[in-house]
C-alpha cells in the first residue's frame, strides 16, 4: 500500500512527548483523557472534526445534521447497511453529542452468547467484571431512573436520580403493554431529572438530537470535557489521524501517529496511543497502518470483523385521545425488557427491547411526516395537525448476531489526504431478521391494544455501530486483549464500541463508558 508523499515534520522533542495521544474526542476518548490527565499524565487529544461548544447546539432538526459525520465517505454494502452517516458524529463530543442518553447495562447473558448459544463471540469477561464500572460511571455522569421498577435490570447500584416524568403519550402506550401482559418501567437515562453536579434538569422539549445546550443530557461537553480541560489536556481539532507507525527497532511498539491538520502532515510521538475514533474510523486507522508487518491487530486476519448494528424499527399509531408527542425526550419515556433474556425463544434469535414514547418532531429522518411518503398533497396538512396531537411511537431494538463476514475493510477510493476510505459490509443473520419481524408484528399489536386506530411501522434501520476491533483472550478471534490493548503491540489501545464482541440489544454508550473507565484504571495503575 502506498500513501501520498508529503513532508513529515518532526515535532517530537523528548521533553514535549506526551504520555498519551488519544484519537477521538467522543465519549470514550474524553473520558480517558480526563482520567489519565487527572492522574498526572500529559495527554493530547486529536479530533477530526471542528470544535463544538454548547452555544452552538441550536434547536433545529436541520442544524442538528452538522453534528453528524461529514468526513471521508464510507462505502457501505450488505442487506443491512450500518448507516454510518447517520450514526456517527464529528467534532468535540463525537457521536455522543447527538446521542439520546439511553444508558442501559448489558445483561449477564449478553457476555456469553458463544458459550450459551453457539452464536458469535463471548466477551472476555462476565457481567460481574463490568458491574462496578457501570456503578461508578453512573455516579460520575448522573443517571435517572427507577431501578426497582426495572424488574429485569442486572444487579447494580440504584440510580442517583429519580425517573423523568411520564407524559400523555407514555401513559397511553403503557395501556397497550398492560393489555398484552407486558411490563414497562421508566426509561433509565443520562438525563437529569433534577440538578446534578451543577447541571440543569431536563425541560422535556425533545431537542436531544440537536445536542443539549443546557447540559441536562450527559454529553461529553458537560461531563468529561470540563474535567479534561481542567487537568490540562491539549485538544487539537480539525486534525485527522491517518495511521500509526511501528518503531523500526522495536516493531511491537508504536512510535508515531501520522496526522493531517491545519499545520499540514505531522508525525506525533507519544509513549502510548489510544484510538477512540468510533467503530468504523478506528478500524480504518489500523487498516491503513499496514507496513512491512500486518496492520496492528491483524496477524490473524481479524481486524474489521464482527461488525454489528442493531436492527431497529419504530412503530407508530394514531389515537383518538391526545398524546402530545412533542413532550418529553427523544429517547422515550418507558422501557420494556420483558423479552430480553430469552434469546432462544421461538420465532428467531436474540434479545430485544422496546423504547416507548419518544418525543418526536414532524421533519427529519425520524420525523413522523417523513416516514409517511404515501401522504402528500392536500391530505398532508390535516394529517400533520392530527399527528401533532395524537401520535404514539415506540422503537424495538433487536440484537445483531456477530458474523466474521460482516467486516470493515478499506474502500476503493482515497480521501483528500490520499488515504483509503473505509468500506463496510453488513448482512443481517436470518435468525436475527426473524426476531425483528416477530417483534415488529408484536409492536403493531401493542399499538392496537393501546387504542391506536391507525398503525404503521417504519423500515428496518441500523441503530448504533459496534465491533471491528473486538476484544478477547484469544488472538485468533479478536484484535485486542481484554483491556483494549492491540494484541501484537505494547502501547496501542482501542476504546469505544468497536471493542464489543457482541451487541446485546441495548444502547451502547453506558457500556463503552464503563469499559473506558475500566481501561483508565488499568492504565493508571
Amino acid at each position, binding site marked *: 500500500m502506498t500513501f501520498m508523499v508529503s513532508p513529515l515534520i518532526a515535532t517530537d522533542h523528548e521533553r514535549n512527548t506526551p504520555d498519551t495521544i488519544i484519537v477521538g474526542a467522543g465519549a470514550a476518548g474524553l473520558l480517558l483523557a480526563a482520567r489519565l490527565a487527572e492522574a498526572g499524565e500529559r495527554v493530547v487529544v486529536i479530533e477530526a472534526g471542528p470544535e463544538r461548544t454548547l452555544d452552538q447546539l*441550536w434547536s433545529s432538526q436541520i442544524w442538528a445534521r452538522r453534528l453528524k459525520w461529514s468526513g471521508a465517505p464510507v462505502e457501505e454494502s450488505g442487506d443491512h447497511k450500518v448507516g454510518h452517516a447517520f450514526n456517527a458524529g464529528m467534532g468535540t463530543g463525537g457521536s455522543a453529542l447527538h446521542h439520546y442518553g439511553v444508558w442501559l447495562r448489558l445483561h449477564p447473558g449478553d457476555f456469553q452468547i458463544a458459550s450459551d448459544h453457539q452464536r458469535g463471540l463471548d466477551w472476555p469477561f462476565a457481567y460481574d467484571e463490568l458491574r462496578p464500572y457501570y456503578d461508578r460511571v453512573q455516579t460520575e455522569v448522573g443517571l435517572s431512573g427507577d431501578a426497582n421498577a426495572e424488574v429485569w435490570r442486572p444487579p447494580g447500584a440504584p440510580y442517583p436520580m429519580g425517573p423523568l416524568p411520564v407524559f400523555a403519550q407514555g401513559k397511553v402506550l403503557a395501556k397497550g403493554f398492560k393489555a398484552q401482559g407486558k411490563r414497562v418501567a421508566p426509561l433509565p437515562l443520562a438525563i437529569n431529572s433534577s440538578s446534578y453536579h451543577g447541571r440543569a434538569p431536563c425541560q422535556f422539549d425533545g431537542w436531544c438530537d440537536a445536542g443539549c445546550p443546557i447540559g441536562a443530557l450527559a454529553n461529553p461537553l458537560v461531563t468529561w470535557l470540563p474535567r479534561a480541560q481542567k487537568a490540562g489536556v491539549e485538544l487539537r481539532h480539525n486534525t485527522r489521524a491517518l495511521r500509526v507507525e511501528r518503531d523500526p527497532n522495536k516493531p511491537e511498539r508504536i512510535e508515531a501517529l501520522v496526522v493531517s491538520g491545519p499545520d499540514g502532515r505531522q508525525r506525533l510521538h507519544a509513549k502510548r496511543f489510544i484510538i477512540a475514533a468510533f467503530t468504523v474510523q478506528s478500524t480504518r486507522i489500523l487498516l491503513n497502518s499496514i507496513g512491512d508487518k500486518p496492520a496492528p491487530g491483524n496477524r490473524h486476519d481479524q481486524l474489521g470483523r464482527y461488525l454489528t448494528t442493531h436492527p431497529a424499527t419504530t412503530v407508530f399509531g394514531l389515537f383518538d385521545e391526545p398524546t402530545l408527542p412533542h413532550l418529553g425526550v427523544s429517547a422515550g419515556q418507558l422501557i420494556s425488557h420483558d423479552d430480553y433474556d430469552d434469546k432462544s425463544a421461538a420465532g428467531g434469535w436474540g434479545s430485544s427491547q422496546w423504547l416507548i414514547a419518544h418525543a418526536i418532531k*414532524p421533519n427529519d429522518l425520524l420525523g413522523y411526516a417523513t416516514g409517511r411518503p404515501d401522504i402528500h398533497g392536500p391530505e398532508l396538512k390535516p394529517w400533520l*395537525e392530527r399527528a401533532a396531537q395524537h401520535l404514539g411511537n415506540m422503537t424495538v431494538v433487536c440484537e445483531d448476531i456477530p458474523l466474521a463476514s460482516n467486516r470493515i475493510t478499506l474502500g476503493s477510493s482515497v480521501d483528500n489526504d490520499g488515504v483509503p476510505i473505509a468500506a463496510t459490509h453488513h448482512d443481517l443473520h436470518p435468525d436475527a431478521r426473524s426476531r425483528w419481524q416477530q417483534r415488529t408484528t408484536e409492536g403493531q399489536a401493542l399499538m392496537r391494544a393501546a387504542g391506536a386506530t391507525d398503525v404503521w411501522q417504519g423500515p428496518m434501520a441500523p441503530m448504533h455501530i459496534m465491533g471491528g476491533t473486538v476484544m478477547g483472550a484469544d488472538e485468533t478471534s479478536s484484535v485486542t486483549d481484554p483491556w483494549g490493548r492491540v494484541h501484537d503491540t505494547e502501547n496501542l489501545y482501542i476504546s469505544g464500541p468497536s471493542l464489543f464482541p457482541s451487541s446485546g440489544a441495548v444502547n451502547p454508550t453506558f457500556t463503552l463508558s464503563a469499559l473506558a473507565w475500566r481501561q483508565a484504571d488499568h492504565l493508571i495503575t
Partner: protein
Amino acid sequence: MARPSVSKVTTTTTARDGQLTRRDTLRMGALCASFCIAGDWLTTSPAQAKALGFTPQVLSSQQLAQLAALADALVPGAAEAGVDAYIDAQLNAGADSMLLAKYVGVAPPDQAGFYGAIADAVAHAVANGTAIKDLPAAMLTDSVPHWQGPPASYALFVLRADALDVTWGTDTGYAALGIPYHAHIMPPSSW
C-alpha cells in the same frame, strides 16, 4: 459567480416593490442564508430569495423549477417557502450541506448530480405526458412512465423530506401545526 467569503448581510424586511413586508417575512420564518440576488450576496430567507429572484449557483433555473413544482405537489407550501432556493444553497455549501440526503446514501459530493438527475427525470416525465400532480402517486410505486433518473420512490422520499424541512420543520411550521417550538437555543437562521 464566486461566493464571497463574507456575504453582504441585509435584514431587509420592509416593502420592496410592494412585494414583501415585515409581516410577510415573519410569516415565512427566519430561514436565512446567503443568496446571490441581482449580483449581490444577501442574507435572506429562501422565500425572500425566491421572491427577489435569486441566481442559482449549482442547478439551473429550469431544474430548480421542476424540483419546486414536484415538492409543492408533495408538500403544499414548499414552493412558497422557497424549497428551490434551499436546495440550491445547500448544494452550494459542499461538504457542509445539511440536506437529509446525506443520511440515506447521497454524500454531499454526489448531491448536485443526484438532484439534477431528479429534476431532469421530472422534466422528461412531464414532457411525455405525466402531469406534475400525478407524479407523487406514480413515484411512490416506481411506476412513472418514461422515468429516467434515480429510483422514483427514493427520489420522492428525499425531495419530500426537503419540502417538509422548509415548510413544517421551522418555528413557523410548528406554530402552524399548533405545537410549541420551545427552543433551548433558537438557531440564528432556520438552516
